[in-house]
């Protein structure tokens, strides 16, 4: 049957676990048989197979996430002079280099929110009310919802897809076996820097996106003659924010980064791909990452509403 070994003390090497069908749940002969089994074309069977596949994906992703966490913890000081530059490179790739695009986007985001809000409010002659609650609107829309999600989706589009392609190609070209042959843990060398880089990158980019959107929001409000002084605006923002916002923002964005990196690396690495399968893996990884991010977002709303 499909089995997992989470015994970290006896962590077997990656290629071996893939062969035993541990890391790649799709590839065990039993699963392959179930997936290709001829079935009468009933809708229930179709749904059942989809559900089965979905559960297997969850299982595989969960296992991969736990393995990665295990490696991060157990190999924290191993080969620091090799891994650290890789982490910096990933942070630069999933963070610093995307900053100009994010600043541009934040400016536009501020314009959209202010433009829509002010034009909507002026229809009802409620400009005064809007002026009093501009800070609240921004905190709800940008800080709690759009900021983190936009950052996550953009980093997924720019870097997540590149991860799947890079790792999928590396797997298909046998580079993972080469790492094994050199006694280098592929998860440590290939996955850990990407996970850390993306978690830090999305967190930092979200912070910059939010700050820039708040600033540009005021700028656009000012240009549209909304009677609001900077002091009042920042006062409103400060009143609308509470401590929990900061904690949840940090947790949420880090979790987005972690999940996106795990999903994309899983699809690139965990299954023994042929070169032509890399594009399918990319499509699957993007869809699953977006779904995972939205689910996490929903989870955080529930946490927020509950507290």
């Amino acid at each position, binding site marked *: 049957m499909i089995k997992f070994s989470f015994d970290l003390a006896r962590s077997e090497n990656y*290629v*071996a676990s893939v062969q035993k069908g541990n890391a790649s749940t799709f590839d065990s*002969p039993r699963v392959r048989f179930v997936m290709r089994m001829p079935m009468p074309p009933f809708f229930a069977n179709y749904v059942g197979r989809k559900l089965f596949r979905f559960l297997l994906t969850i299982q595989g992703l969960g296992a991969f996430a736990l393995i990665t966490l295990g490696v991060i913890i157990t190999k924290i000081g191993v080969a620091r002079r090799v891994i650290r530059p890789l982490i910096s490179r990933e942070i630069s790739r999933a963070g610093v280099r995307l900053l100009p695009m994010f600043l541009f986007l934040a400016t536009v985001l501020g314009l959209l929110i202010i433009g829509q809000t002010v034009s909507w409010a002026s229809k009802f002659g409620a400009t005064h009310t809007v002026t009093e609650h501009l800070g609240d609107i921004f905190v709800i829309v940008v800080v709690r919802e759009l900021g983190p999600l936009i950052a996550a989706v953009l980093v997924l589009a720019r870097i997540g897809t590149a991860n799947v392609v890079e790792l999928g190609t590396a797997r298909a070209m046998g580079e993972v076996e080469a790492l094994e042959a050199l006694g*280098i843990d592929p998860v440590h060398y290939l996955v850990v820097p990407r996970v850390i880089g993306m978690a830090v990158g999305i967190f930092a980019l979200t912070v910059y996106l939010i700050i820039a959107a708040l600033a540009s929001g005021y700028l656009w409000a000012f240009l549209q003659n909304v009677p609001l002084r900077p002091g009042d605006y920042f006062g409103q923002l400060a009143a609308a924010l509470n401590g929990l916002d900061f904690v949840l923002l940090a947790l949420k964005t880090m979790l987005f980064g972690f999940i996106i990196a795990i999903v994309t690396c899983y699809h690139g690495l965990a299954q023994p791909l042929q070169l032509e399968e890399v594009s399918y893996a990319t499509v699957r990884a993007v869809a699953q990452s977006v779904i995972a991010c939205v689910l996490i977002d929903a989870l955080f709303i529930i946490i927020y509403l509950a507290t």
Partner: protein
Amino acid sequence: MSAAPETSTRCAIEMRGVSIGSMRDLSTIVVEDVNWAVAPGDFWVISGLQGSGKSDFLMLTGGMMAPVSGIYCFFGEEMPIFEEHRLADRLRLGFVFESGQLFNHLTVSENVSLPLRYHKNLSREDAEPELNQLLELTELGPWADSTPGAMARNWQRRVGLARALMLRPDVLLLDNPLAGLDLRHRGWWLNLLEQLSRGHPWMNGRPTTLVVTTNDLRLWRGGARQFAMLKNKRFLVLGHWGQVEAASDELVRELRASTLQQDQ
């Protein structure tokens, strides 16, 4: 570098009743019931047609997959050595892949120095002296900053060799190292492997145990090499070149009298 107890009389590689699964699908057995002993310093040539399981055989010997059945001991320790604390044992094995299997996003010098830097936790600069020595040995100096994609196959293969030599392994496994090389490169490889087998200065004069696979026996004739063959899922020891020449087996004759007459 690695302090291997040279006084050991144990076999470097010992297989008893080992069955080997395919790398792609472990449930498909490609070689059965292998009984084989390699003494330290031996030079073995494993021959067989394409698809006879040479690569899978070598992958298993390199510890990248477990035997389906039977016992495989590496310097007296049972393989596969996957456990983290047995990494030191594992690094006594060097593996040269048939198609190089280089890291395409790294330059040649990064490819070659990676194992050293990773296992000894060295910065780029710290690894430089040893790296340069090895690049000089393999004549890869001019390529140091190119990526594998920009190089000809002949040279890509050498990068794979240099990377495997970086940690000065006691046992070096080479998957079909001479396939597709031009004559000059072929001569260079044969010469270097012979030197490694006798004790190369890079290995501090210590003889390296070598196992190569080939589909052309004639390239490896002569020397103190021992020959074996994979045929019909069986591992057959042929002995020295003299015995290979005397063998009447049809496949041996085919592998021996190959179409590469003009190369000889």
